[in-house]
């Protein structure tokens, strides 16, 4: 029986994802889950060494991985990423996961340094939108799905979380509006709140606290598996909680 050790099927070979903030935490976990399904991945993260280490681990799955270290708030870096996407020629999934927590320890909004807040909005709101702008032609061609990673802080009003939270609230509304605007183009847009996770980012938000009671990012894998099976336009405009009770498809 002829049997290749790395069978690549046409259906799977066509799946391509671009993930930001992919070197660790949630971004890496989702990347690994897709790589094990032989998705082609284009990854970015700010720091080169952890990103290259992540790529090495992901390549062991046999998937095709391209990685570009850089800051998603830099226009040139975004153009380089999208040039890679264009060379691949498809984009089924764009996951805007890279996020900026802001000033630490979290200041109250009345004390928030505006430069730090500007950086939060730059990374969490403007950069995802700019990537969507640049990816739109290939997203349209692939009838792809944009996933913007949000947070319960976008609705909470928790003291100290006003900078990060308001940027995620802006991202939520941006997701919902884009969903309506891009429906005709065949592109879906959803916001996904992964819930509390045991990640470096969550630790940074709670410096010095024990966060070992939070689940690892793997807890969200069933949600990503489910999302893979959804028609992007059926779910477009929804805001999902990956650890929530029901993942609802609108009627």
């Amino acid at each position: 029986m002829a049997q290749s050790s790395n069978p690549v099927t046409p259906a799977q070979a066509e799946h391509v994802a671009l993930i930001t903030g992919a070197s660790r935490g949630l971004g890496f976990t989702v990347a690994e889950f897709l790589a094990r399904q032989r998705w082609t991945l284009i990854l970015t993260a700010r720091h080169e060494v952890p990103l290259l280490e992540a790529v090495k681990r992901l390549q062991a799955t046999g998937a095709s991985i391209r990685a570009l270290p850089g800051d998603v708030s830099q226009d040139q870096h975004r153009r380089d990423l999208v040039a890679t996407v264009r060379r691949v020629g498809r984009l089924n999934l764009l996951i805007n996961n890279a996020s900026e927590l802001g000033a630490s320890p979290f200041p109250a909004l009345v004390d928030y340094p505006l430069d730090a807040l500007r950086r939060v909005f730059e990374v969490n709101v403007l950069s995802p939108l700019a990537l969507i702008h640049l990816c739109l032609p290939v997203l349209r061609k692939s009838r792809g799905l944009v996933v913007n990673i949000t947070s319960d802080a976008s609705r909470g009003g928790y003291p100290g979380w006003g900078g990060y939270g308001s940027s995620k609230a802006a991202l939520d509304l941006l997701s919902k509006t884009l969903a309506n605007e891009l429906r005709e183009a065949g592109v879906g847009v959803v916001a996904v709140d992964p819930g509390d996770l045991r990640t470096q980012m969550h630790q940074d938000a709670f410096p010095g606290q024990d966060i070992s009671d939070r689940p690892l990012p793997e807890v969200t894998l069933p949600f990503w598996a489910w999302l893979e099976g959804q028609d992007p336009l059926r779910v477009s405009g929804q805001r999902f909680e990956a650890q929530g009770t029901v993942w609802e498809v609108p009627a």
Partner: protein
Amino acid sequence: MKRQELLFEQPRTLFASTPVEAEHGARDAVRLLVTTPSGHQHATFADLPRFLSAGDLLVANESATLAASLEARGPSGSYTLDLSTRYAEGLWLAEPRWDPAHPGPMPIESGEEARVGDATVRYVAPYPGIPRLWFITADRPLEPILQRAGVPIHYGYVQQVWPLDAYQSLFSRVPGSAEMPSAARPITSKIREALEAAGVRFTSVLLHSGVSSLEIETDQVEEQAVYPEPFEVSSATADLVNRTRDGGHRVIAIGTTVVRALESTWTPDGVRPRQGFTRLFVHPGNPVRSVDGLLTGFHDPVTSHLAMLAALIGLPRVMEAYREAIANGYRWHEFGDSHLILRK
């Protein structure tokens, strides 16, 4: 709730291994234990109409059973691969087992491959918190392979594999369940007609059941990871459920799958039409609000199903019913006897 609270002594002699119709000709020849606030009554299933009233609404699950058990060949030799839930094209949650009687866990590693029919499947990742279940990806759709080579999922207490028909009910319409939603199994057309003549109404929801209820492993029942199942409650069904409740009549779920589906649609204004995947775990900390009763089978110790019964009528009453069932030789599992639980 502590897991030990859901423990009871279960004689294995009470496991039903044969569909009742194979021995007695009719599916409604099973026994029926009826648990109400005033106690427990012994009856046969054909007596069901006696315990229901005009205006009551029975809600069935219209999910049909798949022949979801396949033979796989991999590095550990030949083994059983039970498909649980379809997530996407070629992406399933599955349970690899040494064989129907031996659950594993098998020494599977991420990236490992196996041949299943003419497909190659690859193990992607274990289910978080339930390591015996794996996400698998297949290089071609598995549905045609199920049709050609699949058999119904079965376990050690069933001596032979029965034809797929034995695993369907009067209400089975949409294929998708890994394991039979078995509560409706004893309902024959004759019983259905008798109930309808008595003014009892029927409606249905859809919930594709995954592989068998897990034994709860965490010390605290509520902390057990449970996996989601696809469900759909239509607006016609939601309407009927709400009007039945508003009219002071009872809504009775046929099976725990129906409770999970209806509870997943509950709002302070009643149930609403909804579809998707539900991860809802109905336990005493998550009380049942959408139904007044449940027609079901008998469930194993320390399972999530038992926690659901406790959410419906309280643990002491459940344990009392089970003592009654064991003392009177009621039979367990998908081909076993029935239990009607009414809370009013």
